[in-house]
């Protein structure tokens, strides 16, 4: 106990020292005076002390808990309530029903502003699920994912404003262009792994943005492209609010579609090959999996979703410029995947919604957004490295057993 207090005290002093220039000294450049805010120092000290004490207590409890779990040698991995909700059909059917009903009703009971927020949140959900294929399943750390999102958005913007192509024609084109660029970028980095891969993809992301910014002739440079058409629906005239509602439903369909596809792939020959690649590349290749084809497939499919929602993004905002596609977006989408649980579909959906909606509804704390973000990530890594919802592997039954079950 004493040691808690002692180390917490040290932490508090250290934090006071670190935050001193930021929290205590305030230089008023207009009046050329320096303001000393000593009270702030006190608050920092108290806050750091309490947080540190709680932290140490929690860590110790966790260590004790872990050793206890080991003692319960049988310790079959206990299913959390969340996991049970997902596994047990009796529980998850009603839950899914309620979620779907709420999602369908949402635009009718809330204002357009809310609907817009949700459209963007759903765009992030699809981005997260797409990146989940590349990072979560195939284990290819991609820090330049936003490039493909930009490819989709610019494809639609250009095809629509210059050639007058319709949204519905551009939607698949955007997805396919994204996938194509994914394959093209995938080729040179087939041999890279881990950190090296991350750095190269980070570079690709930045290159994409620089290209959008500087290739005036095609991408209209930093000015961006405006007057992009909203999606039409059999020529029905829609005002902004109706169009947003329409986009919202379109995004809902996209989310369901993405979940459906990812879910099917996860437990298929392809999905297993991706996971094997993530686990051990050499063993995977030695077991007869074509590395190049499998990796490119993962890149292409991940990029496909980004391209697809890129088109929807452009149609929703009706104006895009390179600033929409900077590294921050890649980082946020990646943190959704990590936070949600690598490879877990439900986890990624929840994380994407939380990471998007919380900042919207907590506008008051906007300045501290990144701070909280970082803190949450660190906490997750420490307490739940497998993510909010761990990816549970499917189990299979032998044909003979299946036959017996159906007979008896």
């Amino acid at each position: 106990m004493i040691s808690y207090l002692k180390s917490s005290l040290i932490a508090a002093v250290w934090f006071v020292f670190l935050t001193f220039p930021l929290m205590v000294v305030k230089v008023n450049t207009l009046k050329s005076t320096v303001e000393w805010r000593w009270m702030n120092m006190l608050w920092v000290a108290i806050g750091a002390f309490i947080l540190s004490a709680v932290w140490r207590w929690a860590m110790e409890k966790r260590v004790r808990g872990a050793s206890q779990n080991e003692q319960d040698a049988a310790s079959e991995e206990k299913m959390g309530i969340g996991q049970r909700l997902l596994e047990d059909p009796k529980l998850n059917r009603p839950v899914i029903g309620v979620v779907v009903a709420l999602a369908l009703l949402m635009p009718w009971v809330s204002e357009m502003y809310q609907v817009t927020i949700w459209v963007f949140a759903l765009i992030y959900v699809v981005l997260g699920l797409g990146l989940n294929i590349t990072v979560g399943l195939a284990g290819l750390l991609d820090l330049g994912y936003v490039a493909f999102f930009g490819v989709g958005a610019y494809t639609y913007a250009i095809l629509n404003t210059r050639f007058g192509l319709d949204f519905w024609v551009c939607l698949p084109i955007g997805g396919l262009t994204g996938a194509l660029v994914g394959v093209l970028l995938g080729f040179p980095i087939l041999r890279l792994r881990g950190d090296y891969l991350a750095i190269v993809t980070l570079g690709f992301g930045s290159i994409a943005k620089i290209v959008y910014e500087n290739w005036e002739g095609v991408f209209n440079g930093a000015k961006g492209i405006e007057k992009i058409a909203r999606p039409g629906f059999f020529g029905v005239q829609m005002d902004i609010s109706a169009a947003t509602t329409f986009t919202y439903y379109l995004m809902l369909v996209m989310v369901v579609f993405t979940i459906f596809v990812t879910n099917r792939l996860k437990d298929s020959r392809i999905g297993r090959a991706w996971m094997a690649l993530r686990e051990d590349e050499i063993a995977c290749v030695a077991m007869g999996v074509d590395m190049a084809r499998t990796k490119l497939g993962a890149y292409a499919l991940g990029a496909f979703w980004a391209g697809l929602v890129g088109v929807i993004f452009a149609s929703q905002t009706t104006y895009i410029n390179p600033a929409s596609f900077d590294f921050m977006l890649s980082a946020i989408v990646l943190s959704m995947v990590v936070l949600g649980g690598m490879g877990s579909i439900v986890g990624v959906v929840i994380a994407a919604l939380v990471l998007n909606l919380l900042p919207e509804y907590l506008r008051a704390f906007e300045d501290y957004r990144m701070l909280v973000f970082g803190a949450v990530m660190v906490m997750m890594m420490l307490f739940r490295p497998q993510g909010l919802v761990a990816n549970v592997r499917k189990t299979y039954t032998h044909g003979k057993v299946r036959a017996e079950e159906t007979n008896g």
Partner: protein
Amino acid sequence: MAENAQKLLEVSELTMDFGGLRAVDSITLEVCAGEIVALIGPNGAGKTTFFNCVTGIYKPTRGEILVHPPEQKTQKINGFKPNRVTAMGMARTFQNIRLFQNMTVLENVMIGRHCRTTTSIIGAILRGKKTNRQERETIDRSYDLLEKVGLVDFADEFAKNLPYGAQRRLEIARAMATDPFLLLLDEPAAGMNPQETKDLDELIVRIKDLENISILLIEHDMKLVMNISERIYVMEYGKKIAHGSPQEIRSNPKVIEAYLGEGGDDA
């Protein structure tokens, strides 16, 4: 070596250089159908490098690797990618176990079926009849293999949670899932206790007899090698120093010297 037995693998003058270091020096080796052949030698003799050359992980500097798959054309496989070598019918295990840790035991074996199935991304999404049939066949085959190596009860465990000996057997099952005609085992008994080694011994013989798979194994455990292999190649410093039946090898002075050092006669 039976004179009229069909040759499966024919390696001639295989050499592998790493910069100035010659890890494997003109090794010539043959494996015939229905044989268990062992490759032994002290640590660092180049046995695993030899394996890596044959299975396509390294591209050999010189020499020729010819494969005669049963009922298929003979092929020179120098520089083939590992997955092509496996698809031809030569599967391997690893000295330091390389399982897919965070996948279930069954899924590990199912990966082995990858090169024998054809479902594409589109096929996996649509889940047509063919996909479903292949998937069922994959599951059943994998269960059968787990039964053969005695791991059915662990089918849904994560591979990382298996005991050491079981992990070794899982690697063998995974390699067998690729329908090989030749199994290359890299120190399958490393780190096993005598009982586990004995079980493994029986498993290997069973695979050869019942599954009709020939075996080339690298091994340190002399007892295992002497018990089950029909022919033995001995390597030292990348060179082949002896070749023959277990009896011949046991009494070969060069081998004794390599294993026990000079003056090994006293031992």
